[in-house]
């Protein structure tokens, strides 16, 4: 929407919009489905503010505060190291098992956090959605940004562990941003679908905990993807987090092979999920205020 520059008297309008041309048109459903990225850009202050609010509030009234960000993946690493690394003797590609697991848990934890929060985001912001207009896409997008706080904290710990184990990253490190983008896109792609569905079907909330649990085992976190037989590798690659996690290991620890095959599949799947998710969310958002 172009803003209209008007005089305080509100009678004469100057600027881009002539007074014969409405600033806003209201009709039953949006014609076609447009993503309207320009409007999203105009509301960037709100995106920033929602993110700021969620970060400020996130660790209020907790004892250990932001340490929670590390505790979760750290405990998971200890558990995996004991049961999979020590007892089950799962191979870890010649890397010591704790860092093998933790390097995968860093993107995984980010993914699960963003997925969970974006899925609940529209329902949690019910009060604002039913009282004021703004592009609803801002709400799930916020969770991607707030998730970066926890991600940064877990990542610092990862760097600490790499120093401890004396691991020097190779040139592959330059590929790391690609995998971070891929993790963001995966979490947002699926989060958009679930957020829109959650408005109408609260079953989403009940499904999420075990969905993420099963997903954890379908992702090469506790084991290397080389354990998966070659002929199943393509299907395995349909899980975009497989590509993300193996990519993280390769970029940071440098010992494994680049997961080219997994990645090709992952990228295709993620683009489909994200584009589909954006349109599905836009299609559903007209009814959010009535249904939520």
């Amino acid at each position, binding site marked *: 929407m172009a803003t209209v520059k008007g005089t305080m008297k509100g*009678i004469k309008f100057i600027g881009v919009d002539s*007074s014969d041309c409405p600033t806003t048109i209201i009709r039953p459903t949006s014609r076609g489905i447009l993503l309207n990225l320009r409007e999203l850009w105009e509301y960037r202050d709100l995106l920033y503010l929602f993110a700021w*609010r969620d970060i400020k*509030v996130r660790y209020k009234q907790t004892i250990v505060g932001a340490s929670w960000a590390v505790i979760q993946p750290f405990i998971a690493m200890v558990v995996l190291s004991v049961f999979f690394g020590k007892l089950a003797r799962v191979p870890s590609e010649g890397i010591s098992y704790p860092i093998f697991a933790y390097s995968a848990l860093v993107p995984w934890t980010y993914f699960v956090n963003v997925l969970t929060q974006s899925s609940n985001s529209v329902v949690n912001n019910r009060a604002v959605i039913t009282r*004021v207009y703004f592009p609803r896409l801002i709400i799930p997008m916020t969770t991607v940004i707030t998730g970066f706080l926890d991600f940064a904290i877990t990542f610092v710990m990862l760097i600490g562990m790499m120093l401890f184990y004396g691991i020097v990253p190779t040139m592959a490190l330059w590929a790391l941003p690609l995998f971070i983008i891929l993790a963001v896109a995966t979490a947002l792609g699926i989060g958009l679908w679930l957020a829109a569905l959650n408005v109408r079907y609260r079953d989403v909330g009940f499904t999420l905990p075990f969905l993420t649990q099963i997903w954890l085992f379908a992702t090469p976190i506790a084991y290397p993807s080389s354990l998966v037989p070659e002929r199943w590798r393509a299907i395995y690659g349909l899980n975009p987090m497989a590509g993300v996690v193996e990519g993280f290991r390769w970029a940071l620890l440098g010992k494994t092979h680049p997961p080219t095959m997994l990645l090709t599949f992952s990228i295709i799947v993620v683009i489909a999920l994200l584009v*589909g998710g954006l349109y599905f969310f836009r*299609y559903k958002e007209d009814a959010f205020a009535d249904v939520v």
Partner: protein
Amino acid sequence: MSNLAIRAIGISKRFLIDRPRATNAMREFLEDVMRAPFRRFSSAIRYGTNNHSRRRSEDDKYVWALRNVSFEVKCGEVVGIIGSNGAGKSVLLKILSRITKPTEGYAEIYGKMGSMLEVGTGFHPELTGRENIYLGGTILGMRRAEVNRKFDAIVAFSEVEDFLDTPIKHYSSGMNVRLAFAIATHLEPEIMLLDEVLAVGDGAFKEKCLNKMKDVASEGRTVLFVSHDMKAIENLCDRAILLSKGRIVINDETRKVVSHYLSKDYE
């Protein structure tokens, strides 16, 4: 028509009052997801006929909250919307402020619009008064720079200077209302939609708000104002619209409409 602010043509809104039976929920869910990519085609089929009936509408019960509402508001006019509970006043404001879509009809808005449909929209109880001014202001449509500029004026109006750095969950409800209203009165949209905002707060503060709103109105801002407070309506509005059961009963100068409303003979 060059000085038009709002034009609404045949606005109707239908709500579902009966949830579909549980056995249908699964079917409906699958339809929902499967149809999404083909929506443009299927909507043509569904809405192609004149009766607007969806395929599963036989199972559902609907109620019309608004029916064929048409009116115009000129720039600088202050228009009151009155009617008993459930007349459709709030739904009308929600449609005009784009929170919800009309089922039928069309509206044009000329100019930047702001709305305050509830006191304290977007406030977060864990955040301080200072932080909530930024949050509330941005949610109601201000830019961050704009909030910065008006911050002192907002604080002065709200009379909560001493508690700016206290989380608002410790505020009394009166303080909450004052802070919220202080933000709302410092919005500067060309068109302002207000819903029952004066129904809260004590006498003195109400008076202050009323005066502030008079200032706003005299500046030539267009205001659409929903209230049950006939004194406030008569005080502020040039014109009023009486709604009953989702339809416009009368749309005329305030005095006539209010007396019509009070006489109750429209029902």
